[in-house]
């Protein structure tokens, strides 16, 4: 069984939750520490967890984007390995330009924690099975997706809008909750699938994302 690489930066705080979710679907996680580069062939997929790397100081994801581990991740992304960035992980992928656009402060300038419904807009390596509406929790202060008009149009044309909100919690342009790269192996999502892995959590729809790692 190949391992799933879980990236860890100073300040990352959803790392252990992602670890647990990967184990829950029967796979083996392994930490990838921010200071170290890695052999991309050693892992079958990568997750960049959420949660305040470097305290969100300067710009969300900006300081993490410069870490050595991101060099290797860029290589993995180019080779077509599945890469998922969740919340702050999504912000980091945007800062490294592995994904288009940026995530800026919520329209109401307040952190927002609540459950949202999402419409998958396209099939990627991270939702081979999910076609219908899924319910996941969001928890972020800077999750408003932003891209310039031209770029937004291109995203829709190239089927790079991955998920949209049914009810927009943060003022994201065109209700965008997640995007992917052109090759659809690199995906970013503001909501947290790892917090929706069982009914007792309030919902188990996060499994459809994590289970796509099973191939």
């Amino acid at each position: 069984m190949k391992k799933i690489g879980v990236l860890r930066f100073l300040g990352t705080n959803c790392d252990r939750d992602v670890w647990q979710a990967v184990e829950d679907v029967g796979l083996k996680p392994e930490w990838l520490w921010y200071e170290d580069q890695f052999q991309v062939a050693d892992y079958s997929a990568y997750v960049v967890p959420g949660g305040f790397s470097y305290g969100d100081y300067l710009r969300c994801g900006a300081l993490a984007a410069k870490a050595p581990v991101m060099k290797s991740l860029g290589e993995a992304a180019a080779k077509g390995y599945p890469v998922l960035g969740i919340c702050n992980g999504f912000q980091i992928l945007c800062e490294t330009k592995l994904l288009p656009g940026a995530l800026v402060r919520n329209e109401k300038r307040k952190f927002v924690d609540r459950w949202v419904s999402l419409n998958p807009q396209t099939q990627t390596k991270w939702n081979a099975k999910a076609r219908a509406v899924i319910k996941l929790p969001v928890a972020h202060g800077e999750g408003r997706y932003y891209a310039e008009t031209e770029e937004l149009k291109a995203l829709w044309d190239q089927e790079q809008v991955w998920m949209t909100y049914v009810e927009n919690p943060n003022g994201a342009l065109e209700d965008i909750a997640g995007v992917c790269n052109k090759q659809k192996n690199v995906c970013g999502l503001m909501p947290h699938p790892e917090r929706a892995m069982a009914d007792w959590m309030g919902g188990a729809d996060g499994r459809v994302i994590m289970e796509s790692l099973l191939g």
Partner: protein
Amino acid sequence: MDNLADKLKKYRLSKDEYARIESVLGRAPQGVEWALFSALWSEHCSYKSSRVHLKKFAFNSPRVLQAMGENAGVIDIGHGEKVAFKMESHNHPSFIEPYQGAATGVGGILRDIFTMGARPIALANFLCFGRPEAPRMPQLVEGVVAGISGYGNCVGVPTITGQTEFHDSYNNNILVNALAVGLFCEGDPVVTSVAKGNGNYVVYVGAKTGRDGVHGASMASESFASDSESKRPTVQIGDPFFEKLLIESCLDVMKQDLVVAIQDMGAAGLTSSSFEMAAKGGVGFKIHLDRVPLRDTSVGPEEILLSESQERMLLICEPAKFEAVKKVFHHWGLDASVLGEVYDGPEVELYWKGDLICKMDPKILTDNAPVYNRPYQKWAPKKQTAELKAKDLNLIDVLSSVEGTSRRWIYQQYDQRVGAKTARDCDDSVSVQRLPSGRGFGLVLGCRPHVMRVDAQVGGYDSGFYPALELAAKGFRPLAMTDCLNFGNPEKEEIMSEFVAAVEALAETAKILDSPVISGNVSFYNETLNQNITSTPSTGLVGLRESVENIPRSHFTHKGDAIYLWRLPQVELVGDQLGRTPQFKGAIDAQKAARFVDAVRVAVQNPSINSSRVNGKFGLGYTLARMCTETLGAAVDAVAGGFWTERLYEVVLAGPESVMEPLQKAASTCGSELVKIGTVTEGTLQLGPQKHSLNELNKAYNTGWSQNFAQLA
């Protein structure tokens, strides 16, 4: 040179205390000794006005592993799991600078938890604000909530429950009490602050020291004067990112068994941590203050001793393990520096650039602090009436009032799910986390200020029984509690009388519920310009349940369910909210109330019970309205006692008719009664002759916040 009166004022010591210092030292205090006595003999550190009464909380329970005296209490919950928890106040700093005050309150309580070796898994907060129209109040609300959310979310610990009160007695003195819970899994060590081992290193880790919060501990022990503006330079800045690194590195060195003892540099900073650690271990320290890492090189020895710069720890380790300790901290981007060493003692010796500037037996400071038995009166209920007279309330007014409206604006700003353990969040009356063993861990806050204003003794009982009943209504057995005793000026007899009445009632409740008070703090001098706050002994109760499945909901779930009222009315009361005159009659029989709590807990294990809620503030009318959803309402005919008085204690349950018989049987075993009062319906809530559409109710409940705080919406 200052004269004595000026010095006493600067160091906030009384003439009697000065005389005591002279007698324990056998001479006048010199140099930094002034600062040491000022900090460690402050109310905040020494509990000098409350100590004689706090002893009343003490009792033995086999599940208690650590109680008062350590950074936090720890209980054994079986299956190899233990929990540490504690609540602490940060009232005065939050009034001065709401964002940083609240944020550093959260940071401080988290450090108390993880210094024990527990990984923090939950935060909760108990907030009391003044009226929305009071000066600065919207900004205070906004700043405090932003501070809690900014710190808790970033450090990665979910805020899973809270309580927020509004009353004009808090207009000039808000309350910000933060609670944290930590979990030990199988094999995680419980680490204490008892220093040991001749030759061991005294190590400083974490952030560098600045002038932040110098004299903070003694400031927290003083009433606010109107010139509190001038006390402003003492504001401390919290850094949740740094704290996160400190959590990971500290837990790492403890797990690897690299440290002997550890303590947070909290109130009174290095002074309290070093002298307390040495005193507990009965050892001496040699500490070189010039080795303390500084943010600003102009900071002198006295400021180093008193600085309350955040995110710093003092630890003791064997010299052979220091390199390993340092490696762990470096991994997490932090420094560790040796300040000195442990020796047989008994004195703590402080050096500055090679010169011995202070040499003192720490027990002089920690064990000889003055103890005051402040005057108080034996409690006599004042507002007891023969028959309650209260006008009915208008449900829509209640739901849209600042007391009754939804707190979603607040808790939507908290990350309630990081850690992936949350089963029930701030939306519910009891928050629940799923432990690695699969069991449910319940957390609920207590103390209802409107009950305290009616009667401090009833309020003291209620601070234990109400949250215990909330836990029981969800099937949780209460296990232990923490408290944060927020009171006014203890030098005033009426305040001290309320304190003693509430503490004694709470201590009795804890004993009868077998839920010992294992940690907490006392915050006196919540007094501004001679106005004292409502005496507010806030509590946090934890409970356990075998699983997280089939926990009754706090709202209605099935149309057609019968609605039951399970009652043991001992006290009837009308609170002073919405301009009503406070009144009550009756008395709490603690034994009976405890049997009721236990009977409820056992009975709700029946998986057919769909909904449960404890009847609370305002009375049954408000409680039933809170159980309605967007689609499900209720039809309830007249109820004995009406909809708008509170009865301690009552529980509302909903489920199929089949649950009535077993529930009635359970009720009869504890001298209580159970009656069917109505049915779950669709679209409306009918209370006797009054009928309200759910749209109207939900609108009032959901827009009340923005009506009261237009600027914040």
